[in-house]
């Protein structure tokens, strides 16, 4: 009886270590030592936005709760061990917070996955959201947007050795991976590619590295982050075939907050913070980006 139990225990321990050890390979561990080059933002002290219910609530609470992504290297990435967040989206979130009167110690980030964004904003769990959030009409019916603060475009990530996938039209018949439920996934069909879908882009990249898919597709900003993380193995094709204006999502109809965030974005674009933040994050992948014109709607 006792031996039986020991064997069972030993077996389960073995199996779990095996699973844990194997998983290590594919887990995200972006080394992002960019702290030195990041800009710091002057926190405004005389902000008064009493017409904005969101701002009033945040002020009374004493901190700002910002929704973000946690799994996108150089955009919105959370180092779980060090409990820090880094990336371009995180910088945008911080510079806006500074102009709303909240210092770095008064900013609290919360991971919100794509599918839950509208619900979290409408439900007031977060004050605003910065995380590769494409502005479109369907979403405008539920939330308001400030921005855009960057324009990305759908592109393809392939293995460095790959020469036959040169653009969207070369997707035909190829296994192309994207995240379940994303707009990028729907577009694979349009170009006659064979869609493969997982929960996260990191899992798609893993499949690309093990040769099971031919390409990964989503916004170039996200892909550049992964290419930079797997230098020498992966490359971005560089022919974007859509326009994804990224905006800051906030409660629908909060015009005062929307105007304030737009003003903040404009100010930081003009004083060079935007450029500095980009260079210290996504710019590390070697690709440049342009500041898009704001569109207050």
């Amino acid at each position, binding site marked *: 009886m006792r031996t039986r139990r020991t064997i069972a225990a030993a077996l389960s321990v073995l199996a779990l270590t095996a699973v844990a050890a*194997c998983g290590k390979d594919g887990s995200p561990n972006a080394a992002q030592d960019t702290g030195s080059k990041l800009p710091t933002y002057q926190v405004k002290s005389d902000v008064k936005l009493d017409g904005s219910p969101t701002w009033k609530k945040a002020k009374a609470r004493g901190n700002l709760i910002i929704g973000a992504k946690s799994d996108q290297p150089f955009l919105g990435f959370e180092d779980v061990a060090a409990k820090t967040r880094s990336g371009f989206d995180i910088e945008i979130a911080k510079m806006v917070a500074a102009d709303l009167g909240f210092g770095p110690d008064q900013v609290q980030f919360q991971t919100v996955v794509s599918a839950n964004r509208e619900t979290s904003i409408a439900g007031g769990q977060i004050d605003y959201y910065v995380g590769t959030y494409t502005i479109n009409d*369907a979403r405008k019916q539920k939330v308001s947007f400030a921005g855009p603060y960057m324009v990305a475009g759908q592109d393809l990530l392939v293995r460095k050795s790959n020469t036959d996938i040169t653009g969207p039209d070369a997707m035909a018949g190829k296994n192309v991976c994207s995240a379940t*439920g994303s707009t990028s996934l729907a577009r694979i069909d349009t170009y006659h590619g064979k869609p493969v879908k997982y929960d996260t882009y990191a899992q798609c990249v893993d499949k690309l590295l093990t040769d099971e898919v031919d390409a990964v597709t989503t916004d170039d900003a996200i892909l550049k982050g992964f290419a930079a993380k797997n230098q020498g193995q992966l490359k971005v094709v560089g022919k974007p075939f859509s326009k994804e204006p990224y905006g800051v999502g906030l409660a629908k109809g909060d015009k005062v907050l929307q105007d304030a965030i737009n003003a903040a974005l404009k100010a930081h674009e003009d004083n060079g913070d935007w450029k500095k933040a980009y260079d210290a994050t996504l710019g590390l992948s070697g690709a440049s980006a342009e500041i898009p014109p704001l569109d207050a709607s």
Partner: protein
Amino acid sequence: MGILFEDGNFALFRDGFLRTVELSLISGALALLLGVLLAAFRVSPVPVLRAFGTGWVTIFRNTPLTLLFLAVTFVLPRLEVHLPSFTLAVIALGSYTGSFVCEAIRSGINTVPIGQAEAARSLGLNFGQTLTSVVLPQAVRTAVPPLGSVFIALPRNSAIAGAFNVDEIFSVQQTWVDRGYSTIAIFCWIALAFLLISTVIAQLFRFLENRLAVAR
């Protein structure tokens, strides 16, 4: 509530629904086969088989299903095993559910009086004959209600496959959310689909229970 009848949504919903049913049926069959076999192992007189059965149940019943999916989808390719996503989902779901089926059947076996097995053996039946013609037929009758719970849970567990490249009904939800439909309406349709599947299975097991019931 009209979202089902807008731009191609019905086809998406129907295909997702059928995929969930297909996935549940095939992995359910695998689980049943595996479960009976494992239960036989666990009560067999051979120590190696018993240890194997116990090990299987311990590992698969105690590992979160998402972790099993992760393991089959991302570890197998590293061992040069390349299988279609649907097959991987069937393996993960079947092995997981199989361990629960095994325990449900073993609980049934435990309700069969030991005298039954002893009587069979004294008639000259070997272990296989005792199990298949005396113990299991009685055990399965008692195991029907717990088996029902296991198989009602199976289609709901299969929703995890949506995150691993299987177009089942739950992944339809993510597509709709991204297209910007109302969350409440999406929830209602997906819930209705799962309710339908669960109800059919529940009715099937109620029928089996009535047919196989035995007065003790």
